[in-house]
C-alpha cells in the first residue's frame, strides 16, 4: 500500500524506514480506535450513558448544531461522540481477545499437527475444513439463542471464525521447516521435541502469524460490529459501534447523524487496519501476497 517515490539520493536507513511507514493508516487507527479505547474516560466530553433530555436530537456541528455536541445527540440526548469514544474499548477488547483465542488455538494445533503428522494431523485438518466450511454467523446465531449474547459469546465466535486460518497456514510452514537442517541438528544435539517445536520452529513462523493476525483485525471488528448491530453481540447498554449504528436505523430520514458517525468509525478503523495489514504483509511475508 505504501507508495514508493523515485529516490535519487540514498536516504539514511532509519529515516527511510520511518518514511515508508504507512503513517496515515497508523494515525487514523490511533485517533479513531486505540487512543479512545484507553483514554475515553478523559477525552469524552460527556457521559455516554446518562440521558440528557434537554439536549435531545441535537444536530452535529456545521449542520445546525454546536461544538458542545460535535456529532450530535441521540433520542435520549446522549452525546454521539462520547458514545463512540467509549465504545472503542469494547470493540478493541472483543477483536483483540477473539484474535488471541484464534492465534493460540490455531497456532498450537497447526504446530503440533504439522510436526507429529499421523492421525492427529488428519483430525486437525478435518476440523479446519469443517470450521472453514461453517459460516461464523451460524454459530453466532446458535450461541445467542442458546446462551444469550454476551462478551464471551462474541469472543468465542470471533475465535472460531479465525483459528482455522492460523492452523492451516502454520501447519503448512511447519511441514517445510521440520525437514530443515536446524531441526535435524537440534535433534542430534539432544533437544526434546517440545523444545524444537517451541524454541526453534515457532520463532520461524512468527512473521506469518503476525501478518495473518493483522489482516484479521478488520474481519474481527466487522464481525463484532455485525453481531452487535443484530443485537446478538455485547448486550445493552454497552455502546459498541454496531449497536450505535442500529440505534439510529429507524431515524435515518430525520436524524441521520445517529447512525452515520458510528458507522464512519467502523469504516475508518477497518480500512486503516486492512491497509496496515497489507503493508506488513509486503514487508514481512511477501509470499502470502496471493492470498
Amino acid at each position, binding site marked *: 500500500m505504501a507508495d514508493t517515490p523515485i529516490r535519487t539520493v540514498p536516504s539514511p536507513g532509519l529515516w527511510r524506514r520511518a518514511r515508508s511507514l504507512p503513517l496515515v493508516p497508523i494515525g487514523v487507527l490511533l485517533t479513531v480506535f486505540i487512543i479512545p479505547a484507553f483514554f475515553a474516560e478523559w477525552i469524552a466530553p460527556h457521559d455516554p450513558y446518562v440521558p440528557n433530555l434537554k439536549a435531545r436530537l441535537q444536530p452535529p456541528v456545521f449542520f445546525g448544531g454546536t461544538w458542545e455536541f460535535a456529532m450530535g445527540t441521540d433520542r435520549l440526548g446522549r452525546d454521539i461522540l462520547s458514545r463512540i469514544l467509549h465504545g472503542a474499548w469494547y470493540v478493541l477488547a472483543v477483536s483483540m481477545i477473539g484474535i488471541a483465542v484464534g492465534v493460540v488455538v490455531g497456532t498450537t494445533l497447526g504446530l503440533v499437527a504439522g510436526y507429529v503428522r499421523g492421525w492427529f494431523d488428519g483430525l486437525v485438518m478435518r476440523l479446519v475444513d*469443517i470450521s472453514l466450511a461453517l459460516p461464523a454467523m451460524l454459530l453466532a446465531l*446458535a*450461541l445467542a*439463542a442458546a446462551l444469550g449474547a454476551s462478551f464471551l459469546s462474541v469472543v468465542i465466535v470471533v475465535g472460531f471464525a479465525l483459528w482455522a486460518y492460523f492452523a492451516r497456514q502454520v501447519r503448512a510452514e511447519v511441514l517445510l521447516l521440520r525437514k530443515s537442517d536446524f531441526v535435524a541438528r537440534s535433534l542430534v544435539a539432544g533437544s526434546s521435541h517440545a523444545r524444537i517445536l517451541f524454541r526453534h520452529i515457532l520463532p520461524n513462523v512468527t512473521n506469518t502469524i503476525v501478518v495473518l493476525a493483522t489482516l484479521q483485525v478488520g474481519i474481527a471488528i466487522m464481525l463484532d460490529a455485525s453481531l452487535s*448491530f443484530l*443485537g446478538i453481540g455485547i448486550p445493552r447498554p454497552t455502546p459498541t459501534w454496531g449497536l450505535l449504528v442500529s440505534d439510529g436505523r429507524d431515524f435515518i430520514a430525520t436524524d441521520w447523524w445517529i447512525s452515520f458517525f458510528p458507522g464512519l468509525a467502523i469504516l475508518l478503523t*477497518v480500512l486503516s487496519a*486492512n491497509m496496515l495489514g497489507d503493508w506488513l504483509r509486503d514487508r514481512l511475508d511477501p509470499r502470502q501476497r496471493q492470498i
Partner: protein
Amino acid sequence: MLRFLSLRLASSLFALLIITLIVFLLSHLSGSPVDALLPDDASQEQIDAFVRDWGLDKPLWRQYLTFLGNALQGDFGTSLKWPGEDAMGFVLDRMPATLNLGGLAILISVVIALPLGVAAAVYKSSPIDSGAQIFALLGQSMPNFWLGIILIWVFSVWLGWLPTSGMGTIAHAVLPAIAIAWFQISALARLTRSAMLEVLDAEYIKLARVKGVPEWKVVWKHALRNAAVVPLTYFGILAASILTGSVVIETVYSWPGMGWVAIEAIRGRDFPVVQAVIIAYAVIYMISTLVVDLLYVLVDPRIRHG
C-alpha cells in the same frame, strides 16, 4: 471425477452432521430443553408429553439420535413465537425470499465485478485501475449494515426513488441486493484483475494477437475464459458471505426472509425456529459449495481428468 465428487459429498454431509451436533449440544447447554423449547406456562401434561416425544429421559447420545431422526424428517417442533407454525415449515416458507435476494446479489456482483476487474487489468495503472482498487479497498472495509442504512438515506429518503423497506416489487429488492453485493464486488473484482493480469501475459494470448484476433475478442474470449477459474474458486466463500450478509441486510430492510426470521426468533427465544433456520442455512450453504465444486470440475479439465 466420481471419486472426487463422492468425497466432497461425504465431507459436506459430515460437516452437516457436526452442525446438527453443535445445535443439539447448545440446546442442552442452555439448561433443560424443556425450558428452552416449551413456553414458560406449559402444563405438566405438555411437559410429560414433550419429555416422552423427545426421549429426554434417555441418555444423551440416544437423545441426539432422536433429534437427528426428527431433523431428517424436517421435524423441529412447533414455533413458540408464531404459535401453531411448524418450525421448519415456517422457515421453508421464507426461503424463497432469501434465495431471490441472494440470487439478485450474486447477479449484481458478477455483472459489475467481472467487467471492472477485466478493465482494471487491461488498463493496468490507469485511472480505471486505481479507481477500481480504491473501490475494492473501500468495499472491503465498509460495514454492510451501515451501507444499507446510507443507501436508504440517499435513495429512499433524499431522492425518493426506491422504497425504504419491506418486500413486494423488484424495486424493493434493489437496495438490499446492492448492500449485500457491495463487499463481493470488491473481492471479485480484485480476484478477476489479478487472474487476468496473469493470463494476459501467457503465450497463447500473444499468439492470438499475432494471428490478428481483434483485441476485444482476445480479452473477453481467450483471456477471460481462462482467468474465470480463479474467481470461480471464490464462489464458495461468496456463498458464505452472502448468507451472512442476508442475515444482516434482511434485518436492515425488514425483508421477510430466513435471516429476518432468525433474528426475530432469537429475540423471542424461539429455539425450535432458530434450530430450523440454522440447519436450513447450512443445507443451502453445503449445496451451493457442492455446485461450485461441480462447476469448477466442469470448467477446469485438469481436475476433471486428474
